[in-house]
């Protein structure tokens, strides 16, 4: 019984995904591209070799870290769009230390990761301060800070941190090797990063589910005013949520800088923050669902650049597909809720009518 219900739930859940695929296929037909080949290219581009598998895992890391943070801010009812800039801020502080210090790796790498945590936390706290004490909605504060972080990065890359010789779009000079995050053999995957990412998702799951801290945060998210009246220091909790989310995003930025790129490049955040927002929305704010969805998004992201080489299509198809899936899933949730409430209303009026008929009979 329960299994069959679960299966049918899964079936219902797949409908919007299939519709989204259909819609994307229509777009491909519209631009005159072969849909089957396009999808096959994405799949191949993501999964054809161990190297690609490793890249997918590596792309999953920032998504998981940011999603873990966003689960916290969403629990408190906050739309932390600034997560993108918080990634950048983490990368910036990491870069500053990586370019100016020289320590043995055993000390250097943890220090650089902590620098990422701190940088992101500060940037997140700034958005939080604007929200809590300045009355600026976190969406606008966040968007503004995102742009400022990008501009700051470009300034540093073309100014104080430009490599010897000539500043270019390819970024700062590479960091010294003792700052590099260790790989798994020759594969482009970083075991420490994967471990950290999985741990944070697990922590987010337990913290939001099984602690009073999580409960209070959710209380604020549901109704800030009544939470305040219940004696929860709402401002402190909200600032804490921003700080935590910023720190995790900053850690993601740090890993991008000392792992994936081994330098600071313009656009170091690569849209991972925005994508993580989509991941969490698609997961319906459930931590454990975040993991498979992040893997899927990462695979699409790693696979779609192949489209440019083999089909001369823009790789934005991947992002388009992801956006459409999330949109359709959100709409489908609404449809389901609507029909459920209709059914409820229907049975209610039916039982009312029965009761009335009963009364009528008794009266007669």
């Amino acid at each position: 019984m329960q299994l069959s219900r679960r299966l049918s739930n899964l079936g219902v859940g797949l409908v919007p995904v299939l519709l989204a695929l259909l819609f994307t296929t229509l777009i491909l037909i519209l631009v005159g591209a072969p849909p089957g080949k396009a999808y096959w290219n994405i799949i191949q581009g993501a999964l054809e070799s161990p190297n690609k598998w490793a890249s997918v895992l590596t792309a999953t890391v920032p998504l998981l870290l940011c999603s873990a943070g966003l689960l916290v801010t969403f629990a408190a009812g906050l739309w932390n769009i600034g997560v993108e800039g918080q990634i950048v801020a983490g990368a910036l502080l990491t870069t500053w230390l990586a370019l100016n210090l020289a320590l043995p790796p055993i000390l250097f790498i943890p220090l650089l990761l902590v620098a990422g945590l701190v940088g992101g936390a500060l940037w997140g706290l700034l958005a939080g301060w604007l929200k809590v004490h300045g009355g600026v909605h976190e969406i606008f504060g966040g968007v503004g800070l995102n742009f400022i972080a990008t501009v700051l990065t470009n300034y540093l890359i073309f100014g104080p941190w430009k490599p010897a010789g000539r500043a270019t779009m390819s970024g700062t000079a590479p960091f010294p090797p003792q700052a590099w995050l260790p790989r798994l053999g020759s594969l482009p995957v970083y075991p420490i990063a994967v471990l950290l990412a999985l741990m944070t998702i697990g922590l987010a799951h337990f913290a939001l589910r099984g602690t009073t801290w999580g409960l209070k945060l959710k209380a604020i998210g549901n109704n800030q005013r009544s939470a305040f009246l219940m004696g929860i220091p709402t401002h402190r909790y909200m600032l804490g949520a921003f700080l935590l989310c910023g720190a995790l995003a900053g850690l993601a930025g740090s890993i991008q800088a000392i792992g994936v790129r081994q330098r600071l490049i313009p656009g170091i955040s690569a849209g991972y923050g925005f994508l993580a927002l989509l991941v969490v929305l698609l997961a319906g704010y459930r931590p454990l669902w975040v993991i498979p969805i992040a893997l899927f998004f990462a695979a699409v992201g790693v696979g779609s650049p192949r489209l440019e080489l083999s089909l001369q299509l823009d790789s934005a198809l991947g992002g388009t597909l992801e956006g459409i899936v999330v949109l359709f899933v959100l709409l489908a949730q609404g449809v389901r809720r609507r029909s459920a409430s209709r059914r409820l209303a229907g049975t209610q009026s039916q039982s009312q009518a029965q009761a009335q008929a009963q009364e009528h009979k008794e009266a007669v």
Partner: protein
Amino acid sequence: MNAVLLIKTLASVVRGATPLVFAGIGEAITEKAGVINLSLDGTILLSTMTAFAVAYTTDSVILGFLAAMAVGTLMALIIAFGSITLRQDQVAIGFVLTLLGAELSSFLGNPFVRLKGPSVPHLPILYLADVPIIGAIFFNHNLVVYASYVLVILSWLYIFKTQPGLKLQGIGERPEAAFARGSNVNLMRYVYTAIGGALVGLAGASYSLSIKLGWSHRHTAGNGWIALAIVIFGGWHPLRVAFGAYLFGGLRSLSSIFQRVAPGIPSQFFNGAPFALMIVALLLVSSGWLDRLLIYLPTRVRRVIHDALLGTPPAGLGRVFVKE
């Protein structure tokens, strides 16, 4: 000589702010009705691309504008359907559409990058363009710019001076009361969301066909967010929204002038300036600091400044109306 330059700069400010005026007023109308269309940045990108692609393939600027307005309307209707009919989170759907619009514009616009296409012809208004100073600033542009003036005045008249306009305010401020007085709240919200969306589409078209010609990846990225911020800064009032758009445009060209005057300052600071400004502007109108400062002024002056700078959002903004 300097006066000529000043007039030229002011004229370019007026011209350059046109899309922000369209988008800001469109969003203000939508929000007045109680719906937030957060998708502006993506919608503008997608409609900018659509306008250029359609105008380029059909060689008709008018078709480009119409197509862009259709795209804007469609995006807005998705938000209306998702939030009003399906009662999903407006902000979530708006955010998804922001990203989706941007990605789709990159994907579909790929073949149209950096092409030269048709544009709206320059058209000084007879007689008016010859009026000293004012003529050169306001009446030496094209039809799109003039349309924005008309829109500012018409939307202000409509919202504040007509019966349907008062009803529009009613469904955004107190939907329950408006419903009790016979307004079909949700239908009207659909309509005003669609109208606002069409104006946002118009904003997009006026980028690629008049202000920032052509199409490139992320051609207008960021401007949608600025338009959204201007609506708040402008207190949901068409005249003040337009003022905000011009102020923003003005400060932007001011920074480009500074850039010429003081080449020592890195150009990135000026690229970041609009967004720093956005935060500061919102801080100014939302934090209550201004109110605290105003206490030191005489009452009459205080009221004037207060009315000119501060506004409150429609009380029913973002709240779903459910008929009992």
